[in-house]
């Protein structure tokens, strides 16, 4: 490598070779890429293969397939390469917005968080940088809730606003991934061929006997096909849940990317947003913003659950279905309506689990207290660490 020379606009000579490449790999690792010591060897080998005097642009394109292992890394590569080898060429930008007051619109929150992230780690949002809460709401929160609505406490112990776009979902995806592994897969009636199966597939085994002219047989084994439970996430986006809805939507997005999940949002009406959450398109922000717009009061949990589970386009409820309700339990339906609808859901074999931002279940509304025994598990989900802890308990 000592014979390697670089042409104009090539990597600075003083920076080469292997020590600097090692540093570069360390920098990539610190930036979230999974480089190993073997990659240092590979990058060096690529340089030797290229013949030495190659332009930086060429090195960039040659190293890219070697170092990158996912779309996220592929997209981040050029910027990271430039930042490390040509830091002097990197220009800073300043963004000024006309608004001094925080909006509660999801899109603007995302833009704000992205601009904060772009401006560097030093200016990252402070801990507990929650979505804006109107003055009116803050005043209201000084008073006790009559129907068990969530008090506006800071739902966050970490920055989550930057956890929206696919490339930024790492933290929440980690939670979703661990849930995927820990959820017990349910055996279905269908069979699949499996060498580790314990049931003999008589048809295939007899066919093998014919193939061998009756002189022997090749045992074929089968096992029940196991499938991950179908999860139905029902997220309350009413006014009393304003501080938590955006957080739950992000969580839903992470789940939707990894698990078979159907996601619904509701206040006095409901809408399904599963498809929006699976798409990597900036326009989905607008669509979800439109769906959740208003954050209206007068939540109808029972009516919404009834429509979601039993009306047209309803979810199919069976013993593989797990209905996860994310709500503070503030309901303007008849107090017994929730109990009735949960009973019907349970009647179809589905499991109901409730994630609440409140401090305790005891303090929740009357309708929730009436339906308490129909919910299999109650999980505290007031902030990211609580939800992480709660989801670890899922079985």
């Amino acid at each position, binding site marked *: 490598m000592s014979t390697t020379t670089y*042409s104009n606009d090539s990597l600075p000579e003083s920076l080469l070779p292997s020590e600097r490449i090692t540093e570069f790999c360390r920098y990539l690792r610190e930036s979230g890429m*999974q480089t*190993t010591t*073997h990659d240092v060897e*590979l990058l060096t*080998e*690529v340089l030797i*293969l*290229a*013949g*030495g*005097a*190659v*332009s930086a642009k*060429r090195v960039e*394109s*040659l190293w*890219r*397939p*070697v170092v*990158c*292992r*996912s*779309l996220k*890394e*592929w*997209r981040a590569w050029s910027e990271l390469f430039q930042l490390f080898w040509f830091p002097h060429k990197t220009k800073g930008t300043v963004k000024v917005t006309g608004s001094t007051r925080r909006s509660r619109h999801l899109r603007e929150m995302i833009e704000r968080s992205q601009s904060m992230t772009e401006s560097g780690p030093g200016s990252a949002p402070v801990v507990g940088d929650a979505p804006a809460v109107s003055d009116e709401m803050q005043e209201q929160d000084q008073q006790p809730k009559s129907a068990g609505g969530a008090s506006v406490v800071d739902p966050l112990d970490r920055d989550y606003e930057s956890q929206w776009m696919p490339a930024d979902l790492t933290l929440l995806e980690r939670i979703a991934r661990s849930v995927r592994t820990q959820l017990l897969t349910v055996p279905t009636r269908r069979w*699949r*061929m*499996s*060498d580790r199966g314990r049931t003999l597939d008589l048809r295939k085994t007899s066919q*093998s006997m014919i*193939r*061998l*002219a009756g*002189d*022997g047989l*090749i045992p074929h084994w089968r096992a029940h096909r196991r499938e991950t439970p179908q999860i139905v996430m029902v997220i309350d986006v009413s006014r009393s849940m304003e501080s938590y809805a955006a957080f739950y939507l992000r969580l839903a997005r992470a789940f939707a990317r990894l698990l078979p999940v159907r996601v619904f949002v509701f206040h006095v009406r409901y809408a399904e947003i599963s*498809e929006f959450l699976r*798409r990597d*398109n900036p*326009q*989905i922000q607008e*669509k979800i913003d439109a769906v959740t717009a208003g954050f209206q009061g007068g939540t109808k949990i029972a009516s919404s659950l009834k429509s979601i589970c039993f009306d047209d386009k309803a979810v199919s409820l069976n013993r593989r279905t797990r209905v996860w309700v994310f709500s503070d339990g503030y309901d303007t339906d008849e107090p017994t309506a929730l109990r009735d609808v949960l009973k019907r859901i349970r009647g179809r074999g589905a499991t109901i689990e409730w994630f609440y931002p409140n401090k305790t279940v005891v303090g929740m509304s009357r309708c929730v207290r009436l339906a308490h025994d129909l919910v299999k598990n109650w999980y505290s989900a007031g902030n990211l660490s609580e939800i992480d802890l709660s989801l670890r308990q899922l079985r």
Partner: protein
Amino acid sequence: MDNQLQVALQSIRTKLFQFDYLCDEQLASSVHLAIELKRPLLLEGDAGVGKTALAQALAGMVGRPLIRLQCFEGLDHHDAVYEWNYGRQLTEIRLAEAASQRVDSSSIYSKEFLIQKPILKALQESTGAVLLIDEIDRSDEAFEAYLLEALSDYQVSIPELGTVRSEIIPIVVLTSNGTRDLSDALRRRCLYHYIEYPDVSREADILRLKVPDANRRLIEQAAQFVSTLRKEDLEKKPGIAESIDWLKALMLCGFQSMPDDPHLIRGSLSCLIKTARDRVDVNDDILQRLLA
């Protein structure tokens, strides 16, 4: 020295072009490294961006046979690597018994009775091969783990025979549509390339190459239309294969250039739009905007 590399990359692009594949410089670099470093190339990208087509063109370029393994759920080494020909083995035993001879198990479990499946075939190919492991994300994780030995050491272990090593290392191309996460172990063993949708000019070049009879203006307009359509919020974005089909459909309808009236092209849009919801979402207003 940069020139030598430039020549090598240009040569790859030219040769792939001869096999009807338009390749950009980054992809040429990835292919060059896959050949020179003898490492598998993992291609990711949306359906219809040309992942499989690259492997086919690559086989033509290097003059090696293309051996294809289509992955599916439940795929195991019997389908992918090897299987013993039990029928022939039994016949051999019967014949030996009839001749009152003793059957040696080593003679029964020899290469003569081995049915080679794609991976073993690619490793054993005397002239070398291009092995395409298509849609690896559809296979089970257990099979993915089984592949690790084959992809890192270019060898497979057959208990009855021992380890079979490749004499001429095949060029391995894996494709994935990203329906599930591949393991880090597999990714680490591969070079990675993500194929994006082409930009308008490149797509026009591809259309020109694939449908040479089409009117030049129609090609440019079609490429522009499809490119803009991809920016819409669609469930299933049209790939290059869909663009080619659509252009052919437009030609069949007798268009020499794109019409202004959206109703005239609505019928042919089934080549581009493949889901019911997208069909509803792309209404006349959107079509009018796209045509404009």
